[in-house]
């Protein structure tokens, strides 16, 4: 196992406070008063995703697709790009929606999203990634876990690049950081650098 190798944060996308940041630059922002459903709709239009499946997805998947679309745009990556995601609230919002429907008519189109890893499936489908997937639940953004696990996948040859990060959604409050990690780039893939990218929009 080659442990000496350094990997880089090739690209990163932050979604928070009605804004999209690429690395530390704001690339798209909306009126802070915009509702969350409207934010998801308008972002789709602005980013010209042209991916009709998007409209069937729950909000967590929509956030993941928005983030991944910006993250992977014009990037080189292979089908063994692993997905290492985490959040605090699992599939909370859609869980509540399913829970409320249980008194009346339950919809399979809602129930299927009541697992946090469905977004990994949606991203895999859109980008044809047949790769390692994991969804961790953590109390808070945990760069140690993401770096240790992703480096393990890269060093052992289970993946040649990784999309890792934090995709949190609870009661329409969202907090997203996605990073593409590979051999290319200038920012070393370290816990400190990952933490800094996450903290940047939280200051």
């Amino acid at each position, binding site marked *: *196992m080659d442990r000496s190798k350094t990997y880089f944060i090739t690209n990163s996308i932050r979604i928070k406070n009605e804004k999209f940041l690429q690395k530390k630059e704001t690339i798209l922002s909306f009126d802070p008063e915009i509702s969350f459903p409207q934010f998801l709709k308008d972002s789709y239009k602005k980013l010209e995703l042209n991916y009709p499946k998007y409209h069937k997805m729950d909000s967590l998947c929509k956030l993941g697709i928005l983030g991944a679309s910006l993250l992977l745009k014009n990037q080189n990556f292979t*089908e063994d790009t692993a*997905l290492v995601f985490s959040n*605090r*609230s*699992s599939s*909370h919002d859609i*869980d*509540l929606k*399913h*829970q409320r429907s*249980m008194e009346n008519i*339950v*919809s*399979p189109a809602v*129930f*299927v999203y*009541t*697992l*946090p*890893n*469905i*977004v*990994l*499936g*949606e991203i*895999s*489908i859109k*980008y*044809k*990634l*047949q*790769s*390692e*997937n*994991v*969804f*961790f*639940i*953590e*109390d808070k953004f*945990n760069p140690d*876990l993401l770096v*240790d*696990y992703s*480096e*393990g*996948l890269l*060093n*052992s040859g*289970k993946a040649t690049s990784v999309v890792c990060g934090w995709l949190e959604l609870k009661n329409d409050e969202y907090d997203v950081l996605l990073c593409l990690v590979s051999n290319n780039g200038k920012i070393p893939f370290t816990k400190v650098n990952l933490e800094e990218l996450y903290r940047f929009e939280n200051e």
Partner: protein
Amino acid sequence: MDILLQEDSIISPLGFSTSENIKAIKAGVSGLHFHENSRFLNGGFYAGIVDKSLLAEHFSKIGDSSKFTKLEQMMLLSIQSVLNNNQLDLSETGLVISSTKGNVDLLGDSRNFSKDRASLISLAKIIQDFFGFKLQPIIVSNACVSGGLAVAIAKRFIQVGKFTDAIVVAGDLVTDFVTSGFQSFQALSATPCKPFSKNRDGISLGEAAAAILVSRRERKANNISLVGDATVNDANHISGPSRTGEGLYKSIQLALKEAKLAALEIDYLSAHGTATLFNDEMEAIAFNRAGLEHVPVNSFKGFYGHTLGASALIETILTKHSLLNNELYPSLNFEELGVSKPINIIDKLEKRELKIALKTASGFGGCNLAMILKKAF
């Protein structure tokens, strides 16, 4: 570095220890029974449900059952049983927790518990505090491969030096939340599920918890190693398996590659076998593509039902004991083969020298998992 699967425990309708579970399996006893439920036109459904009062009786030896949910009691009991027989320093032991829905039954009505008790974070905190684990728990929620993936994750973290020993625990319940969802998919069987059979008509749900010690420290002579593991997403559909078994086939290939083994060296295959039409068909296709059509194969779902985030851990533990005991356990409720490709279903208990086994699982979101277990002696 050998990653060893050591002391384990299963808490299920079949018993409160691994040995009780295996005794029931050998006797052909199923945990699936008819349970009344007004959601169903015929008044109920078949599921594997742990008896609450029996559980509370067992739990009273280690804690106050009124202070813990049913799932917590099951998961805590399973860990306690592993810790009883092993001196572990919990200040440096990893804790990996697998569950798809945790205490989701508290989401609508938290009863006498705090409102956030339904969350997976709270479940992890309860488990961590009960025993005094010092390291931050690692929670995996990756649909129906979670329980096996948690073992693979423990291995991977041991390999990068995060810890030497890890307790992996998994658990899920039969809740109205999940039952109503699978019912809306028309995925529930009208009878106890019949994996790989011609007349299979869906899954039976089940609940269980299990725990295992994963370590690179040798403890007993009879160790089984995890020598290869891989997950591959189908990248095809979020709720239906790939028609070609692509992700499962690829994960088997990658696990074999890591283990430096060939398909013909596999002595036994523990399948996912949920008994839905599409899943079992997909598995048969993937196993054929991988050259595993002659390998004795079973599904444990006829004994337990589908225990979701617990299933792949329970089945890994049973696979481990198959190897240790040199026993092939029958695929319960199997009748006539009902998949388009030949596979070699185990229909009766058989003693046979076994060295290497393959465990597979697949789940919603298009995820697939393959793990290779090998006798380390």
